């Protein structure tokens, strides 16, 4: 259950539209069910009142839409940003990917988003309604007489369980209470893998990545992947393909993708959220983040606009590539 209500966001959007501060609103639009919300640009109060939603399923990170959605917009775009979204917002600004002047950013607190797959794992398929209230969800299914009560904490998306920050690092206006950066356990899974033998790790990733269907959803949803032309779409890049032809290509795609966003990835978790095959892609990104934190000092992409990412920076005292392993082996 979110601390801020749909009506509060709606009022804000309506009044900003009314006073001319913005001419469009980037928000969530309701779907067929209670959980399938779609990002949408609203231009009128009527549209907002009819379709705007804010609930535990508004996971999509809007930052990336700002790169493309404002081309022909007269005036400013209102965008609602959850704390994690603000990091992507800043990172895109660092990379000059959209015009800050054309955006009116409203920071909104977030209590974590629900992963519907986790709800389905508990309640089964056939969900006819989900009521978000308090710290529980009331799930009605086609097959049970009574709604099933599910604790929200149990069905939070992985990225929200390991939320790194409830603090907004960018906004023009903040609704509700500001939160804090959280000392999360987001690297625990990475550490678990690091503790395995190389053979075990290889088997783990072979199993995970073999499911990849190269739908590119991870890339296309990623706020760091805003290239005008992705190397994987470019026949001249030498790595282009439309299918994961074999296990080499599965690995290469994900290594290169993670490498290309290394230092720029804010760990927003969109890649894993959208993966239709449930591949824990965020672990690859987190591995890079964890390594770079350990090798070169703590760095959070997007925490500040204009900060220098670890891979476009150096010191003369950096550790040697070979020492990466010595270090781990002695730590172990």
């Amino acid at each position, binding site marked *: 259950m979110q601390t801020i209500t749909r009506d509060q966001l709606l009022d804000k959007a309506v009044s900003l539209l009314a006073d001319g501060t913005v001419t469009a609103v980037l928000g969530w639009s309701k779907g067929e069910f209670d959980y399938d919300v779609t990002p949408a640009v609203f231009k009128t109060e009527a549209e907002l009142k009819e379709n705007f939603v804010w609930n535990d399923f508004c996971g999509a990170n809007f930052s990336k839409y700002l790169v493309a959605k404002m*081309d022909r917009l007269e005036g400013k775009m209102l965008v609602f940003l959850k704390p994690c979204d603000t990091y992507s917002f800043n990172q895109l600004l660092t990379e000059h990917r959209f015009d800050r002047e054309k955006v009116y950013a409203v920071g909104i607190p977030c209590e974590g988003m629900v992963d519907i797959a986790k709800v389905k794992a508990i309640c089964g398929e056939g969900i006819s309604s989900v009521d978000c209230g308090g710290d529980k969800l009331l799930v009605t299914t086609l097959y049970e007489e009574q709604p099933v009560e599910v604790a929200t904490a149990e069905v939070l998306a992985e990225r929200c369980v390991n939320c790194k920050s409830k603090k907004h690092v960018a906004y023009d206006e903040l609704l509700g209470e500001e939160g804090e950066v959280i000392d999360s356990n987001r690297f625990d899974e990475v550490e678990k893998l690091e503790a395995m033998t190389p053979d075990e790790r290889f088997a783990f990733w072979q199993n995970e990545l073999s499911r990849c269907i190269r739908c590119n959803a991870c890339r296309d949803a990623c706020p760091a992947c805003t*290239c005008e032309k992705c190397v994987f779409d*470019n026949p001249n890049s*030498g790595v282009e393909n439309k299918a994961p032809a074999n296990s080499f290509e599965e690995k290469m795609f994900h290594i290169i993708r993670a490498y*290309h966003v290394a230092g720029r990835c804010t760990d927003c978790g969109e890649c894993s959220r959208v993966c239709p095959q449930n591949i824990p892609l965020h672990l690859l990104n987190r591995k890079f983040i964890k390594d770079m934190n350990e090798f070169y000092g703590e760095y959070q992409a997007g925490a500040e606009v204009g900060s220098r*990412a670890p891979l*476009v920076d150096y010191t003369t005292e950096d550790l040697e590539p070979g020492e990466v392993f010595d270090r781990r082996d002695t730590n172990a």
Partner: protein
Amino acid sequence: MQRVGVFVCWCGSNIAGTVDVQAVSEALKNEPGVVFSTNYQYMCSQAGQNMIIDAVKEHNLTGIVVCSCSPRMHEATFRKTAAAAGLNPYMVEIANIREQCSWVHKDMMTGTEKAIILGKAAVAKVNLNTPLTPGESPVTKRALVIGGGIAGIQTALDIADAGFEVDIVEKKPTIGGKMAQLDKTFPTLDCAACILTPKMVDVAQNEKIRIFSYSEVTDVKGFVGNFDVTIKKNARFVKEDICTGCGACVEKCPMKKVPNEFNLGMDNRSAIYIPFAQAVPKVATIDPNACNMLKNGKCGLCAKVCAAGAIDYTQKDEYIEEKYGAIVVATGFNPISMEKFDEFAYNQSKDVITSLEFERLTNAAGPTAGKLLRPSDHEHPHTIVFVQCVGSRCDSCAEKGKEYCSKICCMYTAKHAMLTRDKYPDTEVYVFYIDVRTPGKNFDEFYRRAVEEYGVKYVKGMVGKVTPEGKKLKVQASDLIANKQLHIDADLVVLAAAIEPDQTARPLATMLTASMDTNDFFTEAHPKLRPVESPTAGVFLSGACQGPKDIPETVSQAGAAASKVIGLLAKDKLTGNPCVASSNELMCNGCSSCERVCPYGAITYVDKEFRMPDRTTKVRRVASVNPAVCQGCGCCTVACPSGAMDLRGFANNQIMAEVDAICK
């Protein structure tokens, strides 16, 4: 597809001894694109080169692969050969089958196999080569020297001597820099003013040199040979071309209580002032923070006494835009602030001074007219303690000091000690040191004279604490050799403060896109082989802005920088290296990753209008590489996530083709 000719060299028996050259040329015949393949005893000989030229003509070759010695040896030779045959010189690739094959492998079979693979890689690469033409750009035959100390002066004089125009920009009202403040110079003990001021006059009188004093550089655009520089001439409220430097205004000025920066605040000057008698330009300057007329509109005395009518209270800062072919940075150094060094009681006692202040105290033109008197009570000090390495050679964790050795302190401290003992034999002089470092011509002899002839008491050890007590300074120190604590009642304590780059250096480096080290010293293009050039083409380094230096070193570096500038300005056109990065604007995101890793500042961003797929237009920020500045390292190509940035001559597809050929 290219029409490739392969030429396998025997290099006498150097290659042919362990590589079956016939087999290599036969095998490479079957490679894609190869239309001709042969081998010859010495490809680099005139006969060998003619063979290439003939083959190009006979077989209409568009690309050449020479399997021979290292490209570091003969790539240039064969490029010339290609040019002579009417081909673009960059359509040549070398397969290194000597140094990296025949000389390191003993077995004929393995050597031959490897030579064939290396040849295949070269063929694969040359198939993707494109003709490259080095860019040309004109050279503005004028140099800018930033900083008017001895480094800048010497550089400017040397450049002007070669017949080129030079402008000096100096932020102070006069040139001369730190050297003008010194008394004597080691190791010869000639007076600084006697050797510096004639050079200052030379500068003033040189027709090729313009001095922008009381000025600063505010903007630098462009690149080697073509810099556009904006210089801000601060308003000095005195018309420079009219002022005769007579000094009448200085005498009449009622505001006489302004701390005199030339004497490091140890005496006062007036609000209108000429920093010192030999200043160049010898023109008065009004200090706007002190002048009552400028602050409150009351006074105007100087204007009244100025016979020339040079005073102009309405003068405004002036911006001058000028073009230069080369820029020399000579921004020099400053002693670090002693504020944080509480242990030496610098803030508590006037009689704890820095070495530069000591220079002024012993200088005939200084606040005491050259008499060594304590600043507090103007009494003659009998016991003087010199402390070396104050803020130098600190541990990396020490926040207040510097890790590096300031290099000049050992010698000037020896000089100060010696001169004191020479002039005032009744004075007891202690020098506390970590090490005495005297590498330089006649330096060690100089230091030994101080000890042996002048009886200066050198003590290995650091001063732990200085406590003012009455008229004395209680100095508590350790003598590491005798392994005991010393307590000295001193009259004067002189701190050899570490030196650091001038504060203006960092913003200047940003403007110049010249790199700096963590201490804000400018980085040289190569620490050994290109010590006076910045990695940014066309930017040169002179003097202490690059690292601590004494005068002789500064002057020699100034001369070296000048000769590099002269070498540049002597050219009418600059021919670039064609193997430079270039960005495919259609794919560029404008994300700045490439710009951040470019060591040369070769990448800038432009807003460009693009036709979008849906026939609308959109303005996007895209990277643009200046080929005259890019040196072709290729760092940007890897930083670029979309692959928009590529390197000519070493393109992504070329390197991958080599990889493929080697691995197949």
